[in-house]
């Protein structure tokens, strides 16, 4: 039976691959000519070309002309019909009488978004580290069906942000699951959570932790499993208490992975948008307005469109991300140097 099924799959593969093979062989003819002209090394350029062309057009060029955009004003989309204003956009962003009070700024919404994002990053990253670490420790224990439980915590990671946002919007609305549970357990009257400023912000944090924590738990679990078992055995033989083992062996050896999780989740938290946008739409008011949504609305969605301002805001956010990315590269460089523990 085995041999038969193998020939069957081979046949299927053959049928599927036959046209591909034909195309590849046809391409080979002009490419041999090219190779003759350009030489072996020249072919490297050929292989790089498609990727580099797409990358240049759709990533590098926008990246560069973003600076030009941030120096122009008006509502026009195309650069050539926009007026040059120099550093005016930045000056307006930074014209505040009191930097701790967004309402004292000319661009008050920008600073509200900055403040919201900062709070979000701090709370969400702290929660992610704690929850992911607990989950990883639990999954690393001697439990049955570990791959099942690992999958349980990983499940929301793959869901699309729109689906995540809608699921939770449905749970937090008036006739939703949360109100049902509170009603059945405590007899609470139904409440519209997403119309409350604080509840809405808490929901934004909670939902994004729910959606991403499984990913970080996996990284930490991999780190835990790389810790040599004999260290624990030695500790046990010395009669070390489990809490002491945790602080003296587990945590120090997990530190590189924890650092990766910290920096990764920081970078991602700064860019929070999709699921929160679907969940709350940035509201009520501006209570869950974050940086990316601010840029999106200033650039495209709002009535008073201001692409220059959006570009300036995105460059400021990009600067923060560059710092975080350099931090990440430094972390991974350090981990590499140390090698596998």
């Amino acid at each position, binding site marked *: 039976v085995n041999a038969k099924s193998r020939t069957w799959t081979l046949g299927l593969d053959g049928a599927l691959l036959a046209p591909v093979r034909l195309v590849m062989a046809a391409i080979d003819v002009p*490419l041999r000519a090219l*190779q003759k002209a350009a030489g*072996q*090394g020249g*072919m490297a*350029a050929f*292989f*790089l070309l*498609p*990727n*580099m062309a*797409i*990358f240049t*057009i*759709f*990533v590098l060029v*926008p*990246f560069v002309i*973003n600076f030009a955009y941030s120096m122009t004003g008006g509502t026009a989309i195309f*650069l050539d019909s926009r007026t040059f204003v120099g550093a005016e956009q930045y000056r307006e962003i930074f014209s505040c009488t009191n930097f701790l009070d967004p309402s004292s700024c000319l661009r008050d919404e920008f600073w509200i978004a900055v403040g919201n994002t900062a709070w979000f990053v701090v709370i969400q990253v702290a929660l992610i580290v704690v929850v992911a670490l607990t*989950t990883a420790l639990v999954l690393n224990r*001697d*439990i*049955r069906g570990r*791959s099942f*439980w*690992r*999958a*349980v*915590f990983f499940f*929301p*990671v793959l869901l*699309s942000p*729109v*689906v995540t946002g*809608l*699921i939770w*919007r*449905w749970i937090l609305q008036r*006739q939703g699951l949360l*109100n049902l549970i509170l009603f059945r357990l405590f007899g609470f009257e139904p409440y519209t959570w997403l119309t409350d400023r604080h509840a809405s912000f808490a929901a934004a944090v909670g939902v994004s932790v*729910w959606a991403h924590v499984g*990913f970080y738990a996996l*990284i930490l*679990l991999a780190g835990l499993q790389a810790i040599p078992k004999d260290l624990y055995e030695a500790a046990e033989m010395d009669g070390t208490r489990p809490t002491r083992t945790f602080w003296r062996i587990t945590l120090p050896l997990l530190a590189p992975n924890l650092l990766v999780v910290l920096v990764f989740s920081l*970078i991602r938290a700064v*860019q929070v*948008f*999709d699921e929160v946008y679907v969940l709350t739409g940035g509201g009520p008011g501006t209570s869950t307005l974050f940086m990316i949504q601010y*840029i999106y609305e200033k650039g*495209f969605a709002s009535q008073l469109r201001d*692409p220059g301002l*959006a570009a300036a805001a995105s*460059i400021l*956010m*990009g600067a923060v*991300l560059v710092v*975080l*990315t350099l931090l*990440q590269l430094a972390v991974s460089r350090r981990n590499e140097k140390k090698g596998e523990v």
Partner: protein
Amino acid sequence: MAGIVRFITRRRGDNGWHWTDIVTWVWLIGGLLVMFGPAVWLVFSSFKTPAALAEFPPSLLPYVTQEVTVKGYDHPLPLYAVTMPDGKTEKLAEVRRIGLVAQMVDPANPGEIVKINISNRRPVETVSFAISNYTEPFIHFDFLRYLWNSVFVTTMATLITLVVNSMAAFALSKYRFRGQHLIMLIILGTLMVPLGVIMVPLYSVISAFGLFNNLWSVILPTVATPTGVFLLRQYMLTIPDELIDAARMDKASEWQIYWRIVLPLAAPALAVLAIFSVVWRWNDFLWPLIALSRKELYTLQVGLSVYSGQLNVQWHYILAMTVVTMIPVVLVFVFLQRFITTGIAGTGLK
């Protein structure tokens, strides 16, 4: 049941329960409820009628009030279980309700109208799945169109991603040339440049190429992903150069070396990238939201978000379409979860 519990909770060593065991199981069971519960609730809700969705407290299963056709009445009447004054329970159909009093008839005896206080009756409910939540959006709205757009974008983007990135990774791993380090540096440096930072100028680049309101505007900016190049290059570095030298001796062209030797050997890494690419592109939201403004070009994610953002949200359709949008990812999760989790643990990418 007790046997199952004992099987699941059985521990190696068997030296009694420690407080950490209790924490472990509370965490696991709690995790099961919190992680899967919302999705299960969504699926059950998606089969409810609009009337059932507006009820509080909501039920888990989709119930509808049973209806009967009674002779002499044009429309089917809702059926209620009524506690009669003599304490017996009878099934009566409601004709109309005036204040606290319901006028009801016995379906078997339609002539006689009985007046009942509404606190003495309960609707007779049966579990019924509102399949129309699923069928109608496909007929009346453009959801089939959105589904097709999503499938098209995901497939094309993934195919191009694989070809373009594997070619670049081949060049970067198997050739020595000037500027190689610079290119690697650029790739590493932009690993983390998010779309959010470049969306304003990218919009004008797209428009300049005449791609605005075209599905290719969603596909092209995503395909040259530095993550993909990086992942494939790291894998191709492990392919021994001797194989390639041997092929060159046999007068194989560089192109043949690429597609007949390197590509098949890099299949595991290609598979990981393919899975990631499918999930990424299926879930993409912000850029399609910007680049596609014509309704018939929406992807599922954009369509869902636009419909759910309307003033009068038709939740019964939205919920059903959310479930549909979830299906491919759930399939990937069920069948390919192992690859993804080992991929993440190994490379730390998402």
